[in-house]
């Protein structure tokens, strides 16, 4: 029973001080949860603390590999809209000058 940080992690440090088991380490290339130490916060908090503050969707996953913060859950931008926005970003955009 342990959560895992995967490469979507941006190394923001937010999770590290919150872990009741001191299971999180500032490792390279990204933060790391020591699986033998992680209790998924059971007995300490109602929600896993790392996943409750992590700002990046998909960075923390459970034992089955399912993200605790799935796409769209934090930004409010659904995966479909995100793809559309990113496509638009890379398409040539008309320049328009305001006075």
């Amino acid at each position, binding site marked *: 029973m342990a959560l895992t940080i995967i490469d979507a992690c*941006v190394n*923001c*440090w*937010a999770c*590290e*001080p919150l872990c009741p088991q001191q299971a999180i380490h500032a490792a390279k290339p990204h933060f790391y949860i020591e699986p033998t130490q992680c209790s998924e916060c059971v007995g300490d*908090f*109602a*929600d896993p*603390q790392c996943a*409750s*503050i992590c*700002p*990046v969707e998909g960075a923390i996953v459970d034992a089955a590999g399912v993200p605790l913060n799935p796409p769209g859950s*934090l*930004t*409010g*931008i659904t995966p479909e809209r*995100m793809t559309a*926005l*990113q496509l*638009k*970003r890379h398409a040539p*955009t*008309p*320049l*328009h*000058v*305001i*006075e």
Partner: protein
Amino acid sequence: MTITVLNQGGKTALTGCAASSCGSSADALAQLPEALRAKINNHPCFSEDAHHHYARMHVAVAPACNIQCHYCNRKYDCSNESRPGVVSEVLTPDQAVKKTLAVAAAIPQMTVLGIAGPGDPLANPARTFATFRQLTAKAPDIKLCVSTNGLALPEVIDELCQHNIEHVTITINCVDPDIGAQIYPWIFWNHRRIKGRKAAEILIAQQQKGLELLVARGILVKVNSVLIPGINDEHLKEVSRIVKAKGAFLHNVMPLISEPEHGTFYGLTGQRGPTSAELQTLQDACAGDMRMMRHCRQCRADAVGMLGEDRGQEFTLDKIEQLDVDYAAAMVQRAQVHAAIEAKRAAPAPITPTAPLVTLNPQFRTSRPVLMAVASGGGGLVNQHFGEANEFLIYEASNRGVRLVGARTAGRYCHGPAQCDDSSAQRFAKILRVLAGCEVVLCAKIGYEPWQQLEAAGIIPNSEHALESIETAVAAVYQELSASGRFSVDSVATQRRSA
């Protein structure tokens, strides 16, 4: 989606909250209570005069954050007090203390140490307070300040007040949870993630409570707001009224900087930043009785030095690790330097920068106000080469006098022969955007090519006042050009017309 050119123009970090009165910083300070004035007097970020003499630094000891703002993507420093798109090296408290002492010994003018990120200092209480605790003990001659989103402020206020803290900056973008919900998607509160309107409600309540508690304890509070067109622009007037009524001594409005490549929510969804004109209008609208911070640059979280120059490269970790600072000795030398600065500041100024020009030259009463950009490396002088200027100080000259209205960041025009190639045209285009609305550029020196390009763009380059005081130079140029009829009321700025 349409990307506006001015979206990029939002890079000009022009900030500040000014008053309707056209006075110097000395006038502005004169309106404040004595105790406040003493606190601000030596602070380079608050006093226009002090920033010519004193320096500040930031250390990046606080990486974590407890809220999400739509203008942040966590890969870069918090834009609350830093330049967006910049990443600071995170230091441990011990490293930060060592760096601070090393800088304070090397730059005796350094009087203020701030913690402003890269996350929220109060969301990292252990790291932030370990740094403050050591500095309060080891370097009592350094003032401490902190910037926060306010969420954790009421809970840590007792601990905060034990240190040598004089200033706290709270970023308050709204006082209405419905607006807040469009700026903050979630907060981390009491061990849970809370989203939407409820999250904004808690954050706003904590910010206001924190502001009240700080004012009650006599700590200076500055409020920063990020101007987000279409979301909180009109609302910021209300924010300004409320925070000032509660005792914030300064309300500083900063532009949203939203570049698609920063990958923020606003960047992705095409939320634009304000134009220089929109920003200035709002700053004027929410002006109080004082005008300060017009000279503010959004510094990076690990900035070192006088405002506008970053000497961070001289104090990297590997360099300071090797230093052995004798701070007791440094403190004696610092006290001498500060006394000399104060003696100099107390001496009567050779010129009165705000003396109304109209009394000198009644015939220019018909001249309109004009913006001039000045390349200055500090010291209140026109002393920088145009090609070297990273930023321009923007002055307004009118027949009422000369006043500083802001600072705009450009990025160097010339990076030396290696880079002076095809992209120089692009770089110049960027400089022109930064200079939007300015009719004159004053600098110590300028090359033939940029001179011609400026003239072609309708801007008058002037390098005849090298090493003169900025106010005197601006006044002289204004009078000279007014006499030639260039600024007569019915002449419109060529640059504005062609923009």
